[in-house]
């Protein structure tokens, strides 16, 4: 009787410890509690009006879901790429610069500061998606067909991407004056919640549907874990790897739209700087193995918001500028260590020994 109960408890505990969502959720909780103690007003959300007279909600939480959107969207693509190819795409930041540049190029035509848009935003976005997917395909082709290490393959665009972005617009810095273009990175008239959040939400829903109604998840994991077996089971590992890089390209295009829309302009050298590292970190924080294989999409997305939560918290506490990255690094190391399977294994062992000790006593 007792033995049975212990067994149940044991499996519950280890089930919890083995759940990938545990770490990002725990990190969120920890950050929440920390902020709650330090300053309960952290969670206050207030309704105000922006300079255009639109109602907007503001508060830290709104900022987090707003600015975390791009990272969360990227995390989707990065998770798939990581799972299928066992490596990461480090060119997404440069990719966003290219996507944004293409978008502005189509919107502004040859003038850098047109009075009116030269093409509808929708058309520009489609072109931007196509270009971003072509660049994704380039990375994918190198990884899938030429078997180049993902980091090395994407190093090419990482290095050259921002120059390409500048070249697309002849080194000009176009500025869009059209108000409707700011909707994507700002607010839709009359809706007080930032649009990037809706875009991210839409991406999550689409991703969920794709994972639910196709075999993408199964195929990607199978290829990531054992390519040879996958082939013998009728899969085409090259094609699948190639495809996930194109999907990541699509995510990059969406991020490009949001980023460029936020400020209606672009700065090739700093736009989305270092975002690739944060995206990879989001995947790692979600407890996904960076060497590929099984993945948990929800955990990655949560991981992305954890990173944004952390960033906002650090800004809030006015951490000294020169020490900012150090603080971030410490927290990140802690989280990554906690989410490492080895560590969880150890904790499980510790619990068992404790219980054994108790039983003996």
């Amino acid at each position: 009787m007792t033995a049975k109960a212990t067994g149940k408890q044991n499996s519950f505990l280890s089930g919890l410890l083995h759940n990938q969502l545990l770490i990002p959720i725990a990190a969120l909780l920890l950050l929440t509690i920390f902020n709650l103690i330090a300053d309960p007003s952290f969670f206050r959300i207030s309704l105000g009006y922006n300079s255009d007279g639109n109602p907007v909600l503001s508060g830290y939480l709104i900022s987090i879901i707003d600015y975390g959107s791009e990272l969360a969207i990227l995390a989707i693509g990065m998770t798939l790429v990581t799972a299928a190819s066992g490596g990461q795409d480090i060119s997404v930041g440069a990719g966003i610069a290219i996507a944004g540049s293409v978008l502005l190029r189509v919107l502004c035509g040859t003038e850098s500061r047109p009075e009116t848009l030269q093409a509808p935003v929708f058309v520009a976005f489609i072109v931007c998606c196509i270009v971003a997917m072509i660049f994704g395909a380039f990375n994918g082709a190198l990884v899938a067909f030429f078997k180049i290490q993902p980091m090395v393959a994407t190093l090419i665009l990482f290095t050259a991407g921002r120059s390409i972005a500048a070249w697309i617009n002849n080194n000009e810095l176009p500025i869009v004056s059209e108000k409707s273009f700011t909707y994507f990175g700002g607010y839709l008239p009359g809706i007080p919640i930032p649009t990037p959040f809706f875009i991210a939400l839409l991406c999550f829903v689409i991703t969920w549907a794709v994972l639910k109604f196709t075999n993408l998840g199964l195929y990607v994991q199978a290829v990531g874990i054992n390519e040879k077996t996958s082939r013998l089971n009728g899969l085409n590992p090259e094609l699948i790897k190639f495809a996930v890089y194109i999907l990541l390209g699509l995510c990059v295009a969406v991020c490009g739209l949001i980023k460029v829309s936020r400020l209606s302009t672009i700065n090739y050298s700093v736009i989305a700087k270092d975002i690739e590292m944060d995206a990879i970190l989001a995947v790692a924080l979600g407890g996904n193995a960076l060497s590929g294989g099984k993945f948990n999409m929800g955990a990655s997305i949560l991981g992305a918001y954890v990173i944004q939560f952390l960033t906002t918290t650090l800004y809030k506490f006015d951490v000294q500028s020169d020490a900012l990255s150090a603080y971030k690094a410490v927290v990140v190391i802690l989280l990554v260590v906690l989410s490492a399977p080895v560590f969880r294994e150890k904790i499980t062992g510790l619990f068992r020994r404790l219980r054994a000790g108790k039983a003996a006593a």
Partner: protein
Amino acid sequence: MKLKKMLGIILTAALCGGMLAACGDSSSTGTANTGDSSSAEKPASTGTDLIRVGIINNDPNESGYRTANVNDLKATFTEANGYEAQFSYSLKNEEQIQAAQKFIQDEVDYLLLSAADTAGWDSVLQDAKTAGVKVILFDRTIDASEDLYEASIVSDMAKEGQTAVDWLKAQNLSDYKIIHLQGVMGSAAQKGRSGALTDTAAAEGWEIVSEQTAEWNAEKAQQIVQTAIDSNKEFNVIYAENDDMAKGAVAALDKANISHGVGKDVIVMGFDCNKWALEELKAGNWNYDGQCNPFQSSYITEIIKKLEAGEKLDQKTIIMDEKGFDAATITQEDVDKYGI
């Protein structure tokens, strides 16, 4: 399968081609003559009175400032103006040194250098000296003996900062509550511009509400200011160390419906004098923009003229005039002339 592979190869080739084109167009690290000084009359140029200069600069894509700088140099050192110029762009010190060696071998008369890194230039500059090539540094200084170059034309970042802070002081606000958006920590511009503010704030008893690095990045600046607004901090000055960060800050202000600009609640200050920033200034949305002068060619040509005439230079280090623009007094002419 075969088709896919073919596709892959074609894609790769196309992209490589595209990249090469990109490089060729904008960020050539080679030393080809530019269009302006193209080689149509090259045979004639040797031995005539064209002055041969080799210009080593950073990548024009680095920033708007650099683009303006490069365009200025390209426009000045033309055959029409009596120069035969060669350009080399790189963000890497080693590549720059290689380019310098090549220019020395080509026996240019002047070597104009904006070094990527301060160290490592001694030996190559020594070579230049031996070969009789005169070296003029612009925009950035290096750690080398002063004997090795003729002149160094630089911006004084601390002075830029001081000009801005003096302007701010002259506004005579009843109290100063400042959000300070810093550039990448440790860069010369950040150190100079931060130093001036920090010193004056301490002396005058100004309150620095928030001091964060946004790493020259508009989005980060937007987030930082957003966070300050979210925590209900009171502030009436945004001191952003470049225009991009000022723009990001303004985006956050707009979102929270906080008025900014001439005669409004918050004073917005930026640096670098981007054309769009000066336009904001002229429209009264911002209050101040400090110049970081990229137009060094006039200083350089002046020095070259003096040296050609055999005159002696008064001083090695020449600090450029740098203006600060006030929204109240800026004119369209200023925007066109100084906007980069």
